[in-house]
């Protein structure tokens, strides 16, 4: 699955009401623009970690701002 699609699937799994907004998402879109709270955001990260069978470090996560950042993170974990 394409990395952005995987992220969209993660968001839909955590909060199905956000799915309609996902079509407009670009790499520059900030994740928080979707209006998820911090708990839902971390739930979404948990979904990604499970699918990718990986763990993102705290240090990397606190630097994530946009969908582009998250795509990069997912790409890296696929390679690593």
């Amino acid at each position, binding site marked *: 699955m394409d990395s952005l699609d995987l992220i969209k699937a993660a968001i839909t799994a955590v909060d199905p009401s956000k799915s309609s907004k996902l079509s407009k998402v670009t790499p520059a879109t900030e994740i928080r623009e979707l209006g998820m709270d911090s708990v839902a955001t*971390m739930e979404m990260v948990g979904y990604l970690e499970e699918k990718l069978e990986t*763990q993102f470090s705290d240090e990397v996560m606190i630097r994530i*701002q946009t969908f582009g950042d998250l795509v990069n993170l997912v790409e890296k974990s696929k390679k690593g």
Partner: protein
Amino acid sequence: MSLPDVSTMPDTVVAALRRVAGVHEHGYTFYDNAAKPTFYSFAALNEAAEARARKLAGCGLKKGDRVGMVLAQPQDFVISFFACLFAGLVPVPMYPPLSFGKLDGWAEGALGILQNAEASLLLTDAQLQSVLWQVMPKVKSLKDLLTVEKLDQKAPSTEPLPTVAPDDVCFLQYTSGSTSAPKGVIVTHGNLAVNTWVTAVEGMDLTPWVDTAVCWLPLYHDMGLIGFVVTPMTRGVRAAFIPTLLFVKRPNIWMQVMSDLKAQHSFGPNFAYALAARKAGPAELAKWDLSNIRVLGCGAEPIHADTLANFEAIMGQAGLRKGAVMPAYGMAEATLAMTFHPRGEPLLVKTLDGETFRAEGKVVPPQDDEVVLGFVSCGKTFSGHAVSIIDSDGNHLGEDREGEIVYRGPSVTKGYWKNPEATEACFPADGWLRTGDLGFVHQGDVYITGRCKDLIILNGRNHHPTSIEWAAAEVDGVRRGNVVAFSVPGEDSEVLVVVAETRPDAPADTAEKVVAAIAEQLSLKVSDVVLLGVGQLPKTSSGKLQRRKTREQYLAGALGKHGDRTLGSSGEKLTVARHVARSLWGRAAHTAGKLFSTRSTET
């Protein structure tokens, strides 16, 4: 080997831990981010804490010096916390940055705490140190920033470790607070000894050498730190620690670990019960055995009876007994626990007449066709402690009257560190701690109804902001839980202002609908509605709304213009880049400072 006697209250946390130093079959289990457990017997915990205490003493720190701790992993945190106490040092637990980049606000908070505490050392882990180097040059008292790995490589002191007494400061608990200045609650060993003892014996009924407690709560916060790091070992009870972030990412791990360990006790705020209930699927419920659970405490935020009832109903499929969820009330200024609902009893919801309550602050049974309000009981206080209700002149009101909750007893702490004004306001000479919470007492049970300072008085009537905020939150487009209501001086009396975050797709007439909803439901006139984007309302580190700060920003015309939250995406990038640069700079400056005995004064 026989187990030590834990039937008496130890007088310090150090004495409590030393008392179980010979115990090899009971102890604490720490889960890492991959949910891999590491067991430390109480004997091993003593050894690890002692070894690290000697390293701390070897750094030239002396009794009473403050040590900032930013440690996300429970294992690092618990051993370092006990090590500080063994070395007579005062740990200052601080929250790590744990979400997607909000580093500016976080660094500002960390800096404020370290400066107020005048910390001598900052202890962190390898992952977080890169972010922390930037604050280092700005805190004059800081001698060093160390990772636990670096600390463990230091030469240990061979001098005897200092002794601690009940009156000595045990640690500083910084409250997330609603004001900008950080307030560090001074918790003594004596405060902790008493509060953990009444919690263990009267509140949770911990059975020595039998029970297990499970905690995913952040350990920099009083509920996790006192409730689960200190209390279980005081009473010879096993505990297991799950990293907070792991719980948020995979909420099922909470009940999974409770089931695996056949645990009896845990605690969480209202939202955690909603999350856990939502995530538990049929597969999990069929697999878990929650029949050993006796007490699941609920505190730290307003308690919704429906949420807890739903949790009990769902987890009942895995054997959870009814009445296991237990509302509690507490605050850092009272060490931690103040009142507990009786164990095993169903929630007690008091319904009352809304009109009389709002107009006169009196608790009377609901009348026909009137507004009915319901509040959840947080139970009674402990032996040796007292709860009372006072009016704004300080008169004690007795039962069934709403006022400020005040609290007295040996759990009341010594005030705020280096903050005489705040100390005087909350810890007056009469010995009654001013909680700032509104509530009433009915048949000895304490009911929380709101916060005093946020009270909105319009046309001589008291209104809780929450009821106004809830009405606004029902409007389509408004983000539930992200509404703040307050009053500001109007032309001839206070007028009502509502500030709400809206979703990006909110309809154009959202503001009008908010005005209409509040008028319809509460018959109140809203003078101004301010709509903000997602994440623009000021919040505390734990995500609580900051009504006072919102009001200040409104009056200053600065709403939505503060902090990193309102920068565009390129601005955000710059912010992060600046942080990294500052961190590198801070580390270089620190090294240079050590070489030349000078200190950077970066502004």
